């Protein structure tokens, strides 16, 4: 009886040591949680979640200070991915933070623009170019559609234009059928 106990205890110690050694020796550098969450967020940097950008929101989610359903641009697919990553239950988007909108880009009405640079300062991704007293324009390919430039404009010359479907990015819908009775 005692011998058996000793054997088991000894085995536990040896195996534990082996496992511990392996954990240190063969340690695989994993992305920290914040990075993984940040990779899921759409990087719109719009601040609708209540945090100044996607990364602060990711940090807040990681620390438990924020919920996973505060990102309108990420929409339901984004929440699902976060839920899966964090092993949480899916929940619908929190309406307090806004509703998902079709992806849009900002467009500056160049006739009206007075070149005040306020929009350029507001842009989180430096996608607006133009010097003081000169007309500004949006680099469409870099615009995330965050709308942060719209409010500061003193002449209300910035509008959000939804990105329409283009032939180059158009994609087939999945087949739509069911096995149910025909109506």
């Amino acid at each position, binding site marked *: 009886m005692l011998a058996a106990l000793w054997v088991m205890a000894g085995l536990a110690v040896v195996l534990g040591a082996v496992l511990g050694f392996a954990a240190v020796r063969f340690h695989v550098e994993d992305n920290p949680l914040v990075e993984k969450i940040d990779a899921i967020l759409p990087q719109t940097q719009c601040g609708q979640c209540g945090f100044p950008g996607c*990364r602060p929101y990711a940090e807040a989610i990681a620390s438990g200070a924020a919920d996973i359903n505060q990102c309108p641009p990420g929409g339901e697919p984004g929440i699902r991915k976060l839920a899966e990553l964090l092993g949480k239950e899916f929940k619908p988007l929190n309406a307090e933070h806004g509703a998902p909108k079709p992806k849009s880009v900002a467009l500056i009405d160049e006739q009206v623009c007075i070149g005040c640079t306020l929009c350029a300062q507001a842009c989180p991704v430096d996608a607006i170019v133009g010097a*003081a007293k000169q007309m500004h324009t949006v680099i469409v390919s*870099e615009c995330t559609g965050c709308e942060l430039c719209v409010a500061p404009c003193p002449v209300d010359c910035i509008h959000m234009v939804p990105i329409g479907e283009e032939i180059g*990015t*158009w*994609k087939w819908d999945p*087949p739509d*059928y069911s096995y149910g009775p025909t109506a």
Partner: protein
Amino acid sequence: MRPLFRFNGGIHPPQHKSESAGQGIVPGPLPKRLVLPLHQHIGAPAKAIVKPGDRVLKGQMIGQPQGPISAAVHAPTSGTIHAVGLHALPHPSGLQDLCIELWPDQEDRWIDRQPIEYREKDPTRVLDHLRSAGVVGLGGAVFPSAVKLNPGPPGRVPTLIINGAECEPWITCDDALMRERSGEIVEGILIMRHLLDAQEILIGIEDNKPEAAAAMRRAAAASPFPMEVVVVPTVYPTGGAKQLTQILTGKEAPSSGRSSDIGVACFNVATAYTVHRAVNHGEPVLSRVVTVTGNVRQARNFDALIGTLLPDLVALAQPKDDTDGFIMGGPLMGHRLPALDVPVVKAMNCLIATSPALFKPAPRPMPCIRCGRCAAACPVKLQPQDLHWFAKASNFGKAQEYALFDCIECGCCSYVCPSHIPLVQYFRHAKGEIWAREREKKAADTARERHTFREDRLEREKKERAERLAQKAAAATAQAAGDGAAAQSKEDALRAAIERAKAKKAEIVPRNTENLPPSTLSEIEKIEARRAQLREAAATKSLDQKED
């Protein structure tokens, strides 16, 4: 006899070639309007170099190629440019793209044509000529031929394969071209051979086109360079470039690479014909042979001008009354046109008028019973029964692992499926979804990078400004008060500077508003008033909420 190889599976659908074959090539209409899309090829779209009102001659370049992979667009006849704008394209989405609208003057006056002597010219100049002649693969891929004909290191492409298989049902445009213009096709092949410095030329034709094969044999016999016409068994999809290459040479083009990796270049017969017209006659691609067939009284092959709107073309074939739509391309790989008001493009080989009797509505899909007929029919040896589960479940990673992107969308799997599952649509959807996700991910990565860069920049600027201010303040106090409290006041000044910077940042004030016309100024004032009101409202609202 050359030993032939086989690809996996394949199908034998009803041919329906006799409706339009052997009727000769009929000239297409010279309509009142032509709509010329600027993006008819793989690669970057051409750039319009004409504006409304310009008079153009037949063969004049109106769209200039942009970037290394691109092709030019030309005026198919003389006339006036009416507009440069959006018009619907023959695409399954029915979406619009940039097109040039040309109103022909009905005079059909040519520009000064400049043939080139390809044997004496530097190959790169011949390739440039082909590029600006708008020559692209006319078998359906519309890849710019100049790029594919770029030989690279000598001896890299010993085998030139000419694709006259035309395996899809109903289509006979290549058949007609080979019957009537075999000599010119052979001329084009000789140019291609010269550019690639190929040692062996194989012309693959399915055995359901004996007249075309005979015509090509006669023309090939007269050629100064030996070329072999190889008649191959009729089985769909023999006309796929990789499939025909495998049949003729036994070699498999690598999944991740190109045909040239195994020393083969494959071109469609119609491409060879346009190469000949472009080089030996100085004629860019202005028209192509289009089969109009199906539910029509007069199925024909028309030599239609690029840009001809389909109603003008289809009228010549006299569609029957119960026609309920049109398929561009063949019934296996083509697509239904959402609207007929779209132009002929370089990729259009066939138009099939459909009727409920001729193309029965797809039977109701049943669950997959794993019978494996799709896998047996798949020419690339995929497992469609597995892939469809992954696509259906949006398990796109797994779908890619099972080689989704090797699918050539030939339709064999859907054709043989006893459960009538729209397998190809699942695969097309999955591919589109994967591409979209890649794009989104790329965009997010760019945004993240730019945002981080901006944050760093702001931080740096703030620090620099604060330092500058601090230095100035320190210098001033040092001069005024002497050395005594310099250290203390320096710190104060620093703090004050930071405070000022903060205050400045907090307050958003319109700037550059001095030299404005009074109307704009009053507008700004109105907007500012509105803003103030909003701010007030917001403040009271939040107060209200607090009181609650």
